[in-house]
């Protein structure tokens, strides 16, 4: 893996990332990223890139985006001191509460930003993919807000395990398209959304939900999600009296993690991304792309992917639909290669236990995706006693009830200790 970056290159690439020089003009984060798309979509990607350049940092667009974040999404989201969890872990634990954002997860930051962009680009309709359904719900809500029709592609397997979100999307006016091809999860949903986009590249806006895919999506999504890290830094300084010693975020495609980490790259904070370790370390048993994958091209980007020796992309397993993806955002691949961010894996059972612990100690039902971050944070706290931790609490767990009801609630005392 490290052979992709020469020994002397890592520091220069990290500096370039910190200074906002990445992606480069070709959409690369060092060796990663790029734009591997069918010829039919090339003009659409060029239009999108030009649109992002024109609008994203335009003061008028930013004013509108910031107003929507404040008045409709409910930002800034709270930073919560997790007192009982801190006591238990022997650490100072702070939670960035993206679960309190409108529609229940960080996904809304990106969805409303791209929906505003789609409106400016003058498209007729929006399509989106979804895994856990959070991006689907966010897209449905954002499209309703700006007045654009929306169709959400969702794998048949995910439709079953995230049923509450399917109904929410429909009520918010979106058409939910069941994807029966491929692995019937997030990867197949992206493939199908791309196939749909190819039929009308000029009329459709593809509202991609994570920091993955072809340029400019990894950049666009990072810019829209970086509000998480910017707010967190300010709040930590104000409420906790300083920046965290370590920050944790779960990583599927990696949008909430890049949003939290990107504004902290220049800080001394240790950054740790947590992938889905599933049921084991074998191919097909997990979705730990950075921890166990190899470089390749998937869905538009050169990045770390889970594949066999023949370059066939492998199916993944995770208890959480939102982490169940064979690829990862190319900027994470770079941050791993430079050593700036460490990526670890947490398994299904550990994630479930962490979810229970947060319910018990803080009265917060976190998403199954998010609970993976707590597993790694707890372990880090054990090895580094007395430190200040920040955990990106990326979403709430209401949508996971169909999965959670399969596991009995443990009897426990709520008396304070």
């Amino acid at each position, binding site marked *: 893996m490290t052979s992709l970056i020469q020994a002397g290159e890592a520091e220069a690439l990290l500096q370039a990332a910190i200074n906002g020089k990445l992606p480069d003009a*070709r959409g690369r984060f060092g060796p990663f990223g*790029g*734009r*591997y*798309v*069918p*010829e*039919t979509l*090339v*003009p*659409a990607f060029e239009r999108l890139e030009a649109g992002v350049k024109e609008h994203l940092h335009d003061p008028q667009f930013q004013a509108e985006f910031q107003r929507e974040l404040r008045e409709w999404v409910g930002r800034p989201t709270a930073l919560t001191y997790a007192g009982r969890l801190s006591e238990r872990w022997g650490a100072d634990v702070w939670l960035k509460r993206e679960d309190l954002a409108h529609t229940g997860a960080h996904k809304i930051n990106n969805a409303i930003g791209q929906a505003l962009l789609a409106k400016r680009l003058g498209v007729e309709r929006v399509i989106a993919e979804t895994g856990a359904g959070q991006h689907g719900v966010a897209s449905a809500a954002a499209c309703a807000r700006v007045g654009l029709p929306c169709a959400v592609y969702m794998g048949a397997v995910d439709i079953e395990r995230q049923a509450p979100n399917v109904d929410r999307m429909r009520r918010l006016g979106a058409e939910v398209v069941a994807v029966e*091809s*491929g692995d019937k999860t997030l*990867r197949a949903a992206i*493939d199908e959304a*791309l*196939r749909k986009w*190819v*039929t*009308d*590249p*000029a009329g459709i806006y593809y509202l991609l939900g994570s920091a993955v895919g072809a340029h400019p999506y990894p950049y666009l999504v990072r810019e829209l999600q970086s509000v998480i890290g910017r707010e967190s830094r300010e709040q930590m300084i104000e409420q906790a009296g300083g920046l965290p010693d370590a920050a944790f975020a779960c990583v599927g495609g990696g949008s909430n993690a890049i949003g939290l980490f990107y504004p902290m790259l220049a800080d001394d904070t240790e950054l740790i991304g947590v992938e889905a370790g599933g049921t084991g370390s074998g191919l097909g048993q997990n979705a730990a792309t950075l921890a166990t994958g190899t470089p*390749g*091209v*998937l*869905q*538009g980007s050169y990045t770390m*992917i889970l*594949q066999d*020796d*023949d*370059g*066939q*992309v*492998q199916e993944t397993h995770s208890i959480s639909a939102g982490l169940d993806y064979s690829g990862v955002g190319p900027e994470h691949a770079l941050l791993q290669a430079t050593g700036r961010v460490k990526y670890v894996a947490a398994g299904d059972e550990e994630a479930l236990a962490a979810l229970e612990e947060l319910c018990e100690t803080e009265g917060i039902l976190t998403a199954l995706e998010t609970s993976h971050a707590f597993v790694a944070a707890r372990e880090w706290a054990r090895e580094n006693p007395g430190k200040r931790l920040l955990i990106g609490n990326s979403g709430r767990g209401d949508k996971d009830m169909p999965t959670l009801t399969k596991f009995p609630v443990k009897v426990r005392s709520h008396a304070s200790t």
Partner: protein
Amino acid sequence: MQAHERVTAAIRAANEAGRTGLVPFVTAGYPEPQEFISTLQAVAAVGDVVEVGIPFSDPMADGMTIQRSSFEALQKGVSLAWIFDELEKAGGFDAPLVMMSYLNPLLAFGYDRLADRALETGVCGFIVPDLPFEESDEIRAALEAKGLGLIQLVTPATPDERLATLCDASRGFVYAVTITGITGGDAGLPADLAGYLDKVSAVSGIPVCAGFGIREASDVADVGAHAAGAIVGSALVEVLERGEDPTGFLNSLR
């Protein structure tokens, strides 16, 4: 003659004989791996150039038919290395072969090894549907060093300036996608097809072959009036899926 020139020559020979070049596509090892070579021989006996489809787990530019055939071939253990070995054992076909593959299996195989094996097994060129021109320098260099062609795709959405660049870079033939869509569509060919193919043919110095949505003799004739060749993919794969004779079907397209 370099390998990619054999492809160009085969299409031109068909045109000189008064025919539209016929370029059938088969998913390698579908429906049964042990029938791969015999199917390919039958198809190459009728086709002027044959496209060998390399199955991939994420065929994002393909419709249901080729998704299904790719998935089944992969289930039955078909891989690029196996395909090259089988082609080598067969020892040659009546028509030049080109491979159609998404990028990742080629990347995993290694570009230099790919070029070597292609040359050894009679593969003359490659079509890579998820590799736009801007990302193609590395593989193009590896292929051209061995005289192999990287066939560029153009589409009705391709702007004029870009069209010229792509036609200029293409080797063997230019693959003109007839529709904005994926393979295997049954919506018919677009009304403005003639103008589009005429434009591509005027820009390109090598033969233009049209593909996507070509299912029957009348489609081949429509395309043939404005392009040098017609590519038939999903319709042929469906014939194989039904266990029917590909020779009869391909002859019926003439």
